[in-house]
């Protein structure tokens, strides 16, 4: 089911023309109204008129998170304050907050983007939707809320917290669509089961739109199964808009990127060169219709790839794959980019290996080496050496064929892998500075 069929199924050629037109307009508004962009464009030796085709985009400078922090609070706004309808901001736990403004038009288009995802789940007018994202400066709550209203749903603004009441409302009010973070969806499911319900049978829930944090395939399956729903992924970030930048149609892999409003690029985070469709790299977004806080080539630090193959749902917008990590987590091992989440996925698919792991990267002579410490699963039979050697070989072979890296596997005793605050320290990179430890999934 489409929400804006004309735009969602627009022929590629026509869509590219629209993108170019809107991008040029965006660049002109940026250059004329925002000092930061005027300086950045001048510094790169370009003016908006240099954008003659979408391929010219690569000549324009990137925008990074720090630029937004430096612009606190309003220096990136491209419209006067009487046109600003709402402000969202990041929490600013790692420094200055980033402030993003929205005009009435921005808010309307945001609602439409999210509403497309609700229609992808075959829901809309007549659907009772519960929004259990937090409301406030965080874009999750209000983003989903307005999306629900624009799609014609009856929206319950439950916000997050008070899980028992959430469950009571889901049951009593016949909620069919739940919007929240994956981890909160799982908590709702488990709490409902604890309360004696079988959510898959006792509730009317049909779909969930879950985003704002990473979730593994296993977690997706668990949520879908426990709640008896279709799991729909949503991508978005507050700098760009909020949830709704890309949404999952359920017909194929990945999420349709709202290409009439946002232009995606995938770049190599080291060389900063754009990569062809299909290759993994850092997602870079240029906004095409944002009025208050337009962004040019914003580096999201999220790692994904573009899936350009046509989707059987009929939408022409290219898809992005599930976000597999952040550039901060990326390891470059003998020239190959590897993300801890990819290693995690391979581990999850080898029976006999427990989910705890720790990767150590170091240098022997001039070559990098990777050592992966794992624990065996509790039910693994280990009294024969060859069983353990076989397990190591199997895991090494899977890693080699999936990630093209040679890994030394070490099976360790339980509780050997250090945990800090409940989270394991997943990566130790001895190459950069001694003993730097980075966690994933922050």
């Amino acid at each position, binding site marked *: 089911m489409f929400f804006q069929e004309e735009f969602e199924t627009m022929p590629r050629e026509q869509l590219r023309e629209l993108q170019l037109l809107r991008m040029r307009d965006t660049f002109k508004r940026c250059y004329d109204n925002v000092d930061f962009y005027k300086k950045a464009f001048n510094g790169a030796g370009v003016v908006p008129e240099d954008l003659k085709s979408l391929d010219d985009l690569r000549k324009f400078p990137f925008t990074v998170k720090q630029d937004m922090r430096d612009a606190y609070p309003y220096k990136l706004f491209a419209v006067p304050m009487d046109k600003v309808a709402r402000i969202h901001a990041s929490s600013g736990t790692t420094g200055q907050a980033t402030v993003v403004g929205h005009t009435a038009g921005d808010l309307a288009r945001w609602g439409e983007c999210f509403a497309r995802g609700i229609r992808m789940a075959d829901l809309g007018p007549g659907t009772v939707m519960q929004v259990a994202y937090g409301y406030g400066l965080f874009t999750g709550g209000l983003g989903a809320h307005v999306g629900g209203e624009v799609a014609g749903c009856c929206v319950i603004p439950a916000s997050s917290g008070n899980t028992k009441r959430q469950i009571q409302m889901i049951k009593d009010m016949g909620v069919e669509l739940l919007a929240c973070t994956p981890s909160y969806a799982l908590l709702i499911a488990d709490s409902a089961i604890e309360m004696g319900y079988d959510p898959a049978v006792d509730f009317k829930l049909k779909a969930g739109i879950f985003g704002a944090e990473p979730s593994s395939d296993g977690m997706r399956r668990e949520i879908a199964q426990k709640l008896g729903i279709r799991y729909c992924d949503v991508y978005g970030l507050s700098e760009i808009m909020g949830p709704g930048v890309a949404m999952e149609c359920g017909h194929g892999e990945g999420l349709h990127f709202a290409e009439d409003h946002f232009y995606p690029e995938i770049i190599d985070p080291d060389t900063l060169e754009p990569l062809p469709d299909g290759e993994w790299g850092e997602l870079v977004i240029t906004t095409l219709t944002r009025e208050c806080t337009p962004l040019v080539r914003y580096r999201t630090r999220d790692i994904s790839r573009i899936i350009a193959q046509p989707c059987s749902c009929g939408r022409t917008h290219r898809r992005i794959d599930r976000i597999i990590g952040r550039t901060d987590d990326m390891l470059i091992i003998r020239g190959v980019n590897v993300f801890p989440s990819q290693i995690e996925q391979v581990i999850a698919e080898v029976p006999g290996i427990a989910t705890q792991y720790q990767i150590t990267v170091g240098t022997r002579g001039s070559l990098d080496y990777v050592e992966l410490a794992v*624990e*065996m699963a509790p039910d693994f039979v*280990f*009294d024969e*050496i060859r069983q*353990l050697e076989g397990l190591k070989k199997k895991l090494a072979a899977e890693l080699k064929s999936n990630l093209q890296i040679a890994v030394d596997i070490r099976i*360790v*005793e339980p*509780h050997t892998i250090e945990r800090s605050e409940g989270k394991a320290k997943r990566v130790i990179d001895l190459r950069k500075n001694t003993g730097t430890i980075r966690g994933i999934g922050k």
Partner: protein
Amino acid sequence: MIKQLTVFLTNEKGRLAAACRVLADAGINLRSLNVADTADFGVARIICDNPDDALQALQHAGYRAAITDVVAVCVPDVLGGLADLLAFMDTLDVNIEYGYCFVNGGGNAIDILKVDGGADVEERLIEAGYVCPKAEDVYNF
């Protein structure tokens, strides 16, 4: 069938001693200890007087431990005793995954065999005239 205590140990100095200390503190008497090891890990196979309590003690202390069913056979401590036994096992069409033996002062030896593929190995050994000691007798050998 008798119960062998199997413990997974990383190949680091002091790990085996630490595991044995846990067992000693739990009042467990070891009858035999056999360690198979590789460059980075080892598997300790232990016959002791109380395998169930020993398992609990080790697991409680955070070790990866398990009980493995093995066959015990009495073999006269004479030249060729073990060779004859293994020759007979060959005729049973089972795989011996590993084996070890221990001897007491009285000239008797017990062979411990981990056999794959024959639940009735013990019966057939007895039919062939071998003596398979009772579990308690092995635990208190």
